[in-house]
C-alpha cells in the first residue's frame, strides 16, 4: 500500500495553467475523489500522477519517493480510462494477461491471478470474448480487472462510469467501492458527478479552474462547504437574505425571514451587514401553516417518486426550494410553515 503526496503540482499549456499549484496527501488505502466541473484539471492531474503528462512544476511522491521523472511504465499504477481503453484485438483473458506478461509473471501463477480477478469482477466464463462482444458494464469491469490484476500501488480511475446508464452506474459505484475496500488499494477517482464522489469517497477534493477549492470528507463538503461555489457544485442550495445583529467570538447572530440564528462564521462581518444564509433544500421541513412560524406559499410541487420537490415563495418575495419525503403533500397555493434546524444553516458572505 502506498501513500501519495502531491506538492504544488502545476501543469501549464503555453500560458494557460490547467493545474495550478495543488497540494494534497492521500493516505494508504484511501479512496479520494477529484470533483469539479469540466475543464477544471482533473484528468490532467490524474495523467501527471500516472506519468502520461509531464509535470511543469511541483512534486509527486509515492511513499516519499519523488516519481516525477519516473516513466509511466515504471510507476506501478493501475489505470481505468473513461472509454475503458481495452485492447480490441485481445480477448478478455489476453487483456488481463498483458500487464502480467510485462511483469514476466510465470504462466501458472498468471492463470491463477487472472482467475482470481475475473471472479472478483464477476466475469467468469467471459475469458474468450473480445471487448466488442461485451456490454458497456462488462467492458467496464474488464478494465477494472485489468488494472487490478497487476496488483498496482495505486489505482487511478478517470470518470469510469460516465458512459453507463443510470442504473448500471449506481450498481458499479457500489461495486467499485466494495472492491476497493476489500483490496485496500490507494485510489484516486475522477468525476464531475457529485453524488458519485459523495457515495464512494473517504475524502473529496473539489477543484475549480485548476485549483483546489476544498478537501474534506463528503459530509464536510456537503454540510460545511467553505464557499459558495463549492456549496452550489455539490448540491442545491437556498440563499436567504439575513441581517447581522451582533457578532461574537467566531459567531454571528442574524435575523432572517426564517428566524433568528446564532451561527459560527468564517467570514468577517459587522453588525448591520447584509449577508446570505445558505440552506440545503432537504433541510427544510414543511407543515401546515400556524401562527408564529415562518411561512411561505407553495408556487409549484413536483413528485419524483422518493421525494417531493417544492418551489416556495417567502412573504418578502424570495424563492426557496424544499425537498421532503412525500408524507404530507401540499398543493399549489397552500400556505406552509417552514422548519429548519439551526445547525443546517451557514453564512456565505455579503449577499449579491
Amino acid at each position, binding site marked *: 500500500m502506498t501513500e501519495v503526496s502531491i506538492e504544488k503540482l502545476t501543469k501549464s499549456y503555453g500560458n494557460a495553467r490547467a493545474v495550478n499549484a495543488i497540494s494534497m496527501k492521500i493516505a494508504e488505502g484511501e479512496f479520494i475523489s477529484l470533483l469539479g466541473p469540466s475543464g477544471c484539471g482533473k484528468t490532467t492531474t490524474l495523467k501527471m500522477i500516472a506519468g502520461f503528462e509531464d509535470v511543469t512544476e511541483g512534486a509527486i511522491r509515492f511513499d516519499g519517493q519523488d516519481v516525477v521523472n519516473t516513466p*509511466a511504465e515504471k510507476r506501478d499504477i493501475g489505470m481505468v480510462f473513461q472509454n475503458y481503453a481495452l485492447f480490441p484485438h485481445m480477448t478478455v483473458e489476453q487483456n488481463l494477461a498483458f500487464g502480467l506478461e510485462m511483469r514476466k509473471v510465470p504462466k501458472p501463477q498468471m492463470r491463477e491471478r487472472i482467475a482470481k480477478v475475473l471472479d472478483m469482477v464477476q466475469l467468469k466464463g467471459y475469458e474468450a470474448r473480445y471487448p*466488442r462482444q461485451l456490454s458497456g458494464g462488462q467492458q467496464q469491469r474488464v478494465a477494472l480487472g485489468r488494472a487490478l490484476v497487476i496488483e498496482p500501488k495505486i489505482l487511478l480511475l478517470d470518470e469510469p462510469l460516465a458512459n453507463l446508464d443510470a442504473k448500471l452506474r449506481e450498481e458499479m459505484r457500489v461495486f467499485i467501492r466494495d472492491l476497493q475496500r476489500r483490496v485496500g488499494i490507494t485510489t484516486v477517482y475522477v468525476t464531475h458527478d457529485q453524488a458519485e464522489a459523495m457515495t464512494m469517497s473517504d475524502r473529496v477534493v473539489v477543484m475549480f479552474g485548476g485549483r483546489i477549492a476544498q478537501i474534506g470528507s463528503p459530509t464536510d463538503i456537503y454540510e460545511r462547504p467553505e464557499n459558495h461555489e463549492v456549496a452550489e457544485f455539490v448540491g442545491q442550495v437556498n440563499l436567504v437574505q439575513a441581517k447581522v445583529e451582533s457578532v461574537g467570538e467566531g459567531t454571528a447572530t442574524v435575523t432572517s425571514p426564517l428566524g433568528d440564528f446564532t451561527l459560527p462564521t468564517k467570514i468577517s462581518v459587522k453588525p448591520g451587514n447584509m449577508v446570505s444564509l445558505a440552506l440545503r433544500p432537504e433541510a427544510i421541513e414543511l407543515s401546515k401553516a400556524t401562527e408564529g412560524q415562518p411561512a411561505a406559499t407553495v408556487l409549484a410541487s413536483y413528485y419524483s417518486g422518493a421525494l417531493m420537490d417544492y418551489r416556495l415563495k417567502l412573504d418578502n418575495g424570495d424563492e426557496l426550494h424544499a425537498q421532503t419525503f412525500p408524507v404530507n403533500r401540499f398543493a399549489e397555493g397552500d400556505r406552509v410553515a417552514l422548519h429548519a434546524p439551526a445547525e443546517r444553516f451557514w453564512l456565505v458572505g455579503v449577499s449579491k
Partner: protein
Amino acid sequence: MSPGKTKGIGPYLLIAPAGLLLAVFLVLPYLNIGVMSFRVPGQGTPYGEGFTLVNYARFFADSFYIWQVVNTLWIGFLTTAICLVIGFPVAWQLTRPNMRFRGLAYGLVLSPLLVGIVIRSYGWTILLGNNGLINRTLTNMGLIDSPLPLMYNALGIIIALVHVFLPFMILPIMNGIQGIDPSLEAAARSLGASRTTAFRRIVLPLSMPGIQAGCILVFVLSLSAYVTPSLIGGLKVKTMAVTVVDALIDTFQWPFGSALALMLSVTGAVIVVIFGRMTRMKWKVA
C-alpha cells in the same frame, strides 16, 4: 428496430448508382473478356466463328507465358513489400500529433499522384537509363566503369512502381493508425509496457486493417500496371499486362489476349483471397 433489419428497397436504391456503374464498367467487360477467351482465333479478323479451348491450351503449353505470370507476380510481391517497408514508418510519422510540417509532408506523399503516370514513368527513364542521371553521376565520380543495369530489367520496373504506388500504401495505413485510440497506448504503458513494446503489441496489430488494405491495393495495381513496365522494361522485360496489350492491340489476337488477361486476373484474385484469409482479424469480424 436495428438498421440491419430495415426492410424495403430503400437501401438497395442507395447503392443502385454504384451497382450500375460496377455492372457497366466491370462485370460486362469481364463477361465480354470471358466469352472472348473461348473464341476461335481469327484469320485476318480479331476473332473467328465458334468456341474453343485452344487459347488456354496455348497458354499452358508454353512455359514462356507461365514464367511471365510468375515474373509479374514477383514484381508485384516485391513492389508491395518495399512499399510496406518504406510506407509504414512514413505513415506512422505522419500520424504523430506533434509532427511538424505535416501539411508539407502530406503533400510530398501525395505528390506522385499529382503528375500523370506517363510523365512519372518517363521521368524514371531519364534517371535510370544507361545515359541517365544516376549512371552518369556515378561514372563521373569514378565509382563505376560501365553503367549499372537499372533499366530494361525488373529492378527498374520495381523502383518506378514503388514510387508510383507508395501513396496507395501510405494513405490506408495512415487511416488505420489514426483510427487507433491513443489511450490504448497509454493503457499499455500503465500496464508496464515500454514505448517499443506498446508499439509492437498494440499499435502494430491494430494497424493491420490499414496494412492489409494498402498491400492489396499496391499488389493489384502492380499486377495491372501497364505504362510503367512498358516504358521502363522496354522490349526486354515484359510483364503480363504488357503482353496482354501486345496481343490485343499489336497482333490483334483478341481471344488469346483475353485468355492471358483472365489467367492474370484469376491468379491475382486467388493470391489476394489467400492473403486476406491469412491476415484475417478475428477481433474485427466478431
